[in-house]
């Protein structure tokens, strides 16, 4: 079964396929530039000790983002 969730709802070791990046402006654009585009697979690796940010793996490298940014990323789980 396929459900769409926002990335911040995923737990470590869960993975998904990006379906949409919400929002606009500089941050939105940066997320695209970093390879967070539709169809890319993304794994949540871990959450920082204090609960934020998160460390995800995308296109074979590690990227960290805050949950606030992650909430704009919709993934299919």
């Amino acid at each position, binding site marked *: 079964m396929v459900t769409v969730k926002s990335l911040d709802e995923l737990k470590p070791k869960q993975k998904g396929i990006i379906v949409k990046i919400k929002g606009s402006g500089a941050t939105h654009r940066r997320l695209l530039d970093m390879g967070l*585009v539709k169809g890319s697979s993304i794994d949540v690796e871990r959450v920082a000790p204090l609960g934020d940010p998160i460390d995800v793996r995308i296109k074979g490298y590690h990227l960290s983002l805050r949950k606030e940014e992650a909430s704009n990323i919709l993934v299919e789980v």
Partner: protein
Amino acid sequence: MAEKTTIALIGNPNSGKTTIFNALTGSRQHVGNWPGKTVEKKEGKSTHKGYELEVVDLPGTYSLTAYSIEELISRNYVVNEKPDVVVDILDSTNLERNLYLAIQLIEMGANMVLAFNMSDLADSEGLEINTDLISRYLNVPIIKTSARDGSGLDELKDAVIDVLESGNGYERDEGRSGRPTINYGKEVEEHLEEFTEYITGNIEIPEKYNPRWVAIKLLEGDEEIIKLVKELDNSRIVLKESRRLQNHLKAIFGEDVETIVADARYGFIHGIVMESVERKRREKSFSDHVRKAVSKPFWGISLAVGSILGLAFLFAGGLIMESAYGFLESVNSPEWLTLILADTILAGLGAITVYLPFMVLFFIIYAALEGGGVIGGADSLSDHIDRVAMNRVIGIPLFLLLMLIAFNLTFEVAAPLSDVVDWFISDVVGGFVEGLLFSVNAPGWLLSLALDGAVAGVGSVLVFVPFIFMMFLVIAILEDSGYMARAAFVMDRFMHKIGLHGKSFIPLILGFGCNVPAIMATRVLESRKDRILTILINPFMSCGARLPVYLLFAAAFFTGSISVFGFTVSTETAVIYSLYLLGMGVAIVIGFIFKNTLFKGLSSPFVMELPPYRMPTLRGVLTHTWERGWLFIRKAGTLIFAVVIFIWFLAALPPGVEYGSEGSYIGDVGKFISPVFAPLGFGDWRSSVSLFFGFVAKEVVVGSMGVLYGSGDVETPSGEATLVGALQGTFTPLSAYAFLVFVLLYVPCMVVVATIKREIGWRWALFTVVYTTVVAWVAAFIVYQGGLLLGFS
């Protein structure tokens, strides 16, 4: 005849640009392993096949649409300056994201060469990259390089010359380079073609820009291109048409153009990578990684010998040191040699290796847990390390422990070396100068100028060179290994709470070395507000130049030891740590206040790459340490030398006055300012003068005290011992501590103020001067008066 040409090196952060730059130009330049190291473009020269190449190293960037100031530097350079050849350096282990920038450069139509760097790492990760195929797809030469072992560099230069001679960009062949243009799909392509014609039909874009590229950039909403077009005649209708098309495409696709474009670019790249890169995935266990590492003779032997030495020091450190001293005494080793051999080298080795047995024990536990299936495999050694370094439970304690170890090592290793330097300056240099001047019957005043002024003043600063070097060494290791980015990750939540940004953390840590590079490093921050805030509180990070003042006063007033949580530590160390912590505490409080007053509003996002860990190379670390440390020595030889001579004259004039007495000019200056400091417990005119000159550089506080308190006694060149004695006569422990608090917090040195002015304008620079001094005065007042109330003296 050599032709002069410009070669620009561009690439993602951490792709090894700077290492390639160094290899090409032979220039010494620092390489860090955290995003955003080259904060300004650096230039160097290289010659090849009769060409004189001006090589420009640009700050790392992920895309041609800039996000931070340093990315803007790179973007503007390749777009507007049009270097003859652009060399895009890619990290072969991370091709997909690295190709994104390459694709944009190709679209722009630059004359270019791709360097697939770190090819050795890609090999060892089991990546098989068919560069010929990619090269054919992109119609751009690709050279595999490894800046580490220097392979591929000559081929890279050959390729650069080839491109230089034939050209493969837009301009040389009017767009018919045969390069594949990315196809954005039928619908988009039709509009793009129309719009390109519309642009060329209505406005005159400068010849160096490829019209199709301008069209794409306008539709993407690239602000820099919009700015450029706005300056042209007729721009209004073009921009209007661009907006119309944006809306039209959005209505059709349900996505904005930037998303469509980024999707298409990454789609194109994904296709290429799927066909030309094969990953022979071999998931390695942690013990495999370790086994592989220690099977290299150097690392294997180092680890074995180090661990044994560490164990020996752990259980019998005292005995080892005693027998070393005993042996050196029996062979009549002079004091300085003992200091170097026993106190620095042997004790330093001990201080470092003591941690190794614990590390090995930890390796064994980790490998056992892994073998037992308690923890699963990981893709790379970096992932294994991150499991521990960014672990939810031990991530933060480990970070704090690392900082503590780093600073401890700095002090333990540097202290005896500092004694050696002191001996060298006061006994060897001082004795030599004195003997020389006596032999030529130099007048008394010249003797005083040389010994009280130059030798005492500059010498009192130079004794701290070992501390500064060790500090920079430690910071270089943390930077080059990739740990700094983890520190930012681990600390972001906390930094966010106090109104800062995880990335602010790196400039703040760098501030412990020197605030000048630290302030420049704030360019990685995307938001101007974050930048200003991080710059404003950066001076509270106690830089290396303040350390001499702490050490001097700690040696004079805080000897002995105290017990902290059951551990016995020397009071000296505790006092110095307390100042570092106080600086951080003040930074946090002030940051919090500013964030809620001057910089109210939304916080900026946190999107940061966590680069793979890399073993720092000895050469890289030493180069870096030397470069930064050398600046300190040079400053001592020039600026500080000039200041101490100036102070000596002020102290010796008007003629006939007793040297450094209240009747001298400097006495007048001191007495004029000292009332301000009286409530803080240090109203002595000489300390006031030293604070006044401390604006030149903080270590001048020590240098000028060396001149002012150093007795006029020419027979014994005033080394630290006399200075300590003189200070003990003027300060009490409480007023000494208040003085240190003031030195920690008050106006940063003039170089820092100048840097702030350059980065964010003179208003903020002036603001920093005023507010830090107010904060310092208030803090020292609280310490001194509060201390008096509590019954300290």
